[in-house]
Structure formats: structure tokens, C-alpha cells
């Protein structure tokens, strides 16, 4: 975490309080207007409103609580394996009392194995992988999010790995956490994330011959308009969105 391009706080701040949340998080979308009217006709005066939405950015030390201990141990353990922590851990985010390590995908398996095996870390239980598709996060559209639980120490952390839409490959964690077998198949099925090294990466929920990856944001929800008491109610994804 010594290299922290987004940190705007003082690196040498010795106060024992968690660092303020950084504003330099990933830009995931730019919101325009206010009431969901995108194609003219917005007479509210808010049509020109432009807002950038960013995820919480990297935190700087100290993270607070046991977060520092875990980060120290992980960095130390990676250094012992001759892996520069700054290369493996892209950034560390502390948000809403949760610790997230953004891991470079090529080092994911090694980091996970370290987290599982190191006696001071011991994250024995992986609760699977959750895919997220950020269309607005250019070059890092597909995120795979892992939650690791340590029963020994009673802790839980999050690993986040990203891959671009053009190269949706992430190494498989099945060798480290066999429980991820079905979870990775599910993430593949819905997001098209290809987990390299998975023993049998096939569709699990959708039919085997299904085209496309349904939970990507550019995949339509579908549905048909229905008539109710004479009025046409459009399909859910055609309705006005206020987001």
C-alpha cells in the first residue's frame, strides 16, 4: 500500500483514527438529468445536470481496527514469497467498516493461497464469487468479488479482481477453495468471466446452448408490455428509471 496513486491524505499521518475516505475512487458512471427523461421533453430544468458517480477510493494508513494487522501480515507474507506487495495489491479500500483488497488478477491465486495458509491470516472459508459489471469503468468492466471468512480469527475481508470486457479472463480459485467450483460457473454463466484453470467451466443455471451472458448490464431484461385497465404498462426495463 506504499504506492497509492489515489491517496490525497498524508502518508505519514500518525493519528490513530482511520483515514478519511478518499474521493479518488473508480468512476462507474456519469449520471445526467434528474428524472430519467433522456430524450428531450424534460422541462424540469434538471436536464443539464451532470454528476459523476465514483466508488469509495483507496484508503491510507492506518485503516483502523484489525485491518492494519491483516494488511501488514499479508504484505509481509507476500514479501517472503518474493512478491512485491505493491504489484499484487492494486489498492486497499476501507469503506463502511469493510476491508477490500483490489488484487491484480495475475497474482490472485498466490494471494488467496497466502490468505488461506498463513497462520496469522487463516481465511479458511471462501463464500464464493460475485460478478459485477461496471459498464462505466473503462478497461476494468468486469469485477469478480470474493469474500473470505476467517473462522480462526473471526474476520471477513473482500478481494476484488477486475478484467476488461475485451479480455474477460481471471485465474480460477478452485484449487485453493474447492467451494468456488459452482460459484465460478455461476459467474461465468451470468457475466462471461472466464476462470482460467477451472476444471469444467460450463453453464450452470442457464441452458447449455444459451447465447449471451444475462447479468451483464448491456443484456436486456426482456419482458413484454401489459395492458391494465386500458393503459399500457411497459416492460420493467422500458419504464422510466430515476437512477
Amino acid at each position, binding site marked *: 500500500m506504499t504506492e497509492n496513486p489515489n491517496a490525497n491524505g498524508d502518508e505519514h499521518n500518525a493519528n490513530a483514527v482511520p483515514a478519511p475516505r478518499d474521493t479518488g475512487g473508480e468512476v*462507474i*458512471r456519469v*449520471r445526467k438529468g434528474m428524472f430519467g427523461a433522456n430524450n428531450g421533453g424534460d422541462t424540469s430544468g434538471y436536464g443539464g445536470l451532470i454528476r459523476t*458517480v*465514483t*466508488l*469509495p477510493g483507496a484508503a491510507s494508513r492506518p485503516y483502523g481496527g484489525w485491518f492494519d494487522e491483516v494488511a501488514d501480515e499479508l504484505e509481509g507474507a507476500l514479501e517472503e514469497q518474493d512478491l512485491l506487495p505493491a504489484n499484487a495489491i492494486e489498492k486497499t479500500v476501507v*469503506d*463502511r467498516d*469493510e476491508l*477490500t483488497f483490489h488484487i491484480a488478477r495475475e497474482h490472485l491465486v498466490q494471494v488467496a493461497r497466502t490468505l488461506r495458509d498463513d497462520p496469522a491470516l487463516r481465511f*479458511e*472459508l*471462501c*463464500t*464464493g464469487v*460475485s*460478478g*459485477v*459489471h461496471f459498464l462505466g469503468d473503462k478497461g476494468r468492466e468486469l469485477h469478480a*468479488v470474493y*469474500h473470505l*471468512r476467517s*473462522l480462526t480469527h*473471526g474476520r*471477513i475481508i*473482500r478481494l476484488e479482481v477486475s478484467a476488461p470486457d475485451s479480455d474477460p479472463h481471471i485465474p480460477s480459485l478452485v484449487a485453493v*477453495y*474447492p*467451494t*468456488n*467450483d*459452482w*460459484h465460478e460457473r*455461476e459467474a461465468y454463466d*451470468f457475466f462471461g468471466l472466464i476462470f482460467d484453470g477451472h476444471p469444467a467451466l460450463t*453453464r*450452470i*443455471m*442457464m*441452458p447449455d446452448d444459451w447465447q449471451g451472458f*444475462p*447479468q451483464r448490464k448491456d443484456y436486456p*431484461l426482456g419482458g413484454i408490455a401489459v395492458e391494465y385497465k386500458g393503459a399500457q404498462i411497459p416492460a*420493467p*426495463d422500458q*419504464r422510466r*428509471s*430515476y*437512477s
Partner: protein
Amino acid sequence: MTTPHATPRATTEGTVYTVTGGDWDEVVESAVKSDDERIIVNMGPQHPSTHGVLRLILEIDGETVTEARCGIGYLHTGIEKNLEFRNWTQGTTFVTRMDYLTPFFNETAYCLGVEKLLGIEDQIPDRATVLRVLLMELNRLSSHLVCIATGGMELGATTIMIYGFRDRELVLDLFELFTGLRMNHAFVRPGGLAQDLPPGAVDQLREFIKTMKKNLPEYDKLATGNPIFKARMQDVGYLDLTGCMALGATGPVLRSAGLPHDLRKTDPYCGYETYDFEVPTADTCDSYGRFLIRLEEMRQSLRIIEQCIERLEPGPVMVADKKIAWPAQLALGADGLGNSLDHIRNIMGTSMEALIHHFKLVTEGFRVPAGQTYTAVESPKGELGVHVVSDGGTRPYRVHFRDPSFTNLQAMAAMCEGGQVADVIVAVASIDPVMGGVDR
């Protein structure tokens, strides 16, 4: 050999028979005739003992299962995708339908996640939290009762089935009284609950506890010491601690391997750390141990419910923040729970501001600050985790449910391979998978 029920057809994989009734003898006969003794049996997806639409693909050699695989996805309904097109409050209506036997766990886990993203965990009224615990523990009872009932039925013990569903009905009656619905309640909402308990609810609850204290020992008398029951369950569906950890199994499966891991104790939520209860374990790693654990957990749930009743203080059940609290008032009408006509008359007739506010919140919803969170609750089946991502809008950007049924079902192969065909049913029943949760 052709019969209307088992017509053979040649495929690239060998001869395939579709067996639909009591024509097993003919299939076995023809299998004996052929030189290849390897038979692959498709069990399900409409088999009555597979808890819904689970397809088991078994490679059997005689009576022994040499390989077992699951085919899932027959009940996939795209709930996670649908959530992304509804506002945050509407989300509970969807998630309650995931694992339909544990609706309150799904709702509470989801709402805890939304509340954490909103940063309003401290503002949730105490009464709402106590009621959430109460509903979850009642729900644990009903879920375990179904597990024991259907598990017993699959062994041929129809009495257990009748008893289990009889007692579950009592829980569902309570749910109906509290929420207006027996299932799919959408009662827990971000910020609190849809409404308060109706008059007379606590008395009914006390009556229920009394009845359950009388009924629960019946399962012990009927099954716990029963030699046939034990012979069918003991050492069946074996999965030790190493296997559980590797396969991510949680809940009764993990506790039957001797580890007292229960999120209510290890990572408490909803104030569980202040309740007095125990986490039962077994060291047998088998179906019988899981059965005993479920029985004991029901007794512990009754203890928690009693403590909840003592803690129920009058007060609000929804956050005070009117920018989040769902504005509608509900009333129980002759046809179930619906809008309160008095409330509608009030906002439509007397207060323009209330009407605008109502309209904005219902059509647009509230915004949730961008970020992500993971909240987990101990459902009757194990760790139910919810990963909620917000992009700062009025709709969830992504909601992922880590359903314990889904994860635990992976252990099916490890539990069944090398065992008897008849034991597959017992092993799967001891996992207690609910396909609504597995497939979502």
C-alpha cells in the same frame, strides 16, 4: 425389449431407457443382459424426493453409486437481474421468493445490507430489530420442520411428515397473522418492518410456544431412538470438517462435523449477542447428527422467541427518517393485507405535501450512496450472504445472494459417491437444499 413405459433408444452414449413407473425389473433385466454393467440414472428433475427440481445424475454399479453429479438451474428465475430494475424497497418482494422456506432470512439479510449502505444501522428502532429476530427464529422452526418432515417422508416415515407439516402449519398461521401472508411476505423492509404486530399477536405466540413445547419431544420419541431411523441415517452422508471447509459447507452440515460455527455467535447481527442460547454440535459428521442438531436448534429457537417476547417494548417499527421510511400504511382487510383506506383518505384529501412525498417515494424511491457491502445471516441452512452494490441510484446496481443451499449442495458428490443408491436420498435430505434458493 419394448414396453410403453421403457422404450429403449440408441444414442452415442449407449442405450437410453426412459423409466417412468414400476418397470424397474425390465430395465435391470436388460442391463444384466448387456455386457456393460455401468448404468447412468437420471434422478429428477421431477422426482418427488429431490426437494423440488433437482436433477441427480448417478452412475451406479449394482446398488453402489460410483459417481454422482447435480444438474441445477431448473428453477432459475433471474431474481438477481430483476432486482436491478426495481427500486430498493421493492427488492424485498423479490428476495423473499428465493429460498421460499426461509423468506424472513432473505429479507433481513437484504435489508441489513441496504441499511449498511445507507448508514442507518443505528437508527433502526429496537422493536423492529427484536421483531426481525422473532420472525427469523420462527422461520428457523418452520424451515427445520419441513426438513425433518420431508426427510422422514423420504425414509418412508409418513408419521414424521404429518407431524412436521402439522407443526409448520402453526408457524405459518402466526406468519399469516403477523404479515397477512403464509409465505413470500415482503414484510422486512429497508429501515424496519412493513407494519407492527396486530393486536393479540403476543398471546397467540405464547400459545404457540406452549404447543411447541408439547410437540417437539414427540419427534424425539418418534425418531431419535428409533432403530430403523438410526440404521438409515447413521454414517450416511458423511462429510468431515476438512471436507466442509474445502467445500464451503455451513450450517447444520458444518456443525455436524463438530465445529460450533454459527454467525449468530461468531459475527452477531440484530443484537444476537445479547440473547441467551446455545449452538448444538455433533461429532458424527453424518445425517443422523444433522437431524439431532436441527431438533436441538428448534428448542434453542423457542428459547430465543421467549426472550424476544420479554423484550418487546412499544415503539415504532420503521426508521424516523421520512426520506427512507415507506410512506404507505397497511391495514388487514377482509381479503388480506392491503393499503389502509384511512391513510389514503388522509393524504389524498388533507395534505398535498404528504401526497407528493408518497408519490415520490413510491414511484422514484430513495437513493443509496455508491459502494458495496456484504452482510451475512445464519439461515437454517447455513451462511446466507448478500453482496449489495449501489451506484448511487434508486435501484440496486447488483445484488448477489450467496445461498447456503447452493454451496452445500456441492457437497452432494462427496457425500454420496461410494454409498448405496438409497442413501443418496438420505444424504441429499440432510443437506436440506431448497431449489428456490439454489437457482434463484
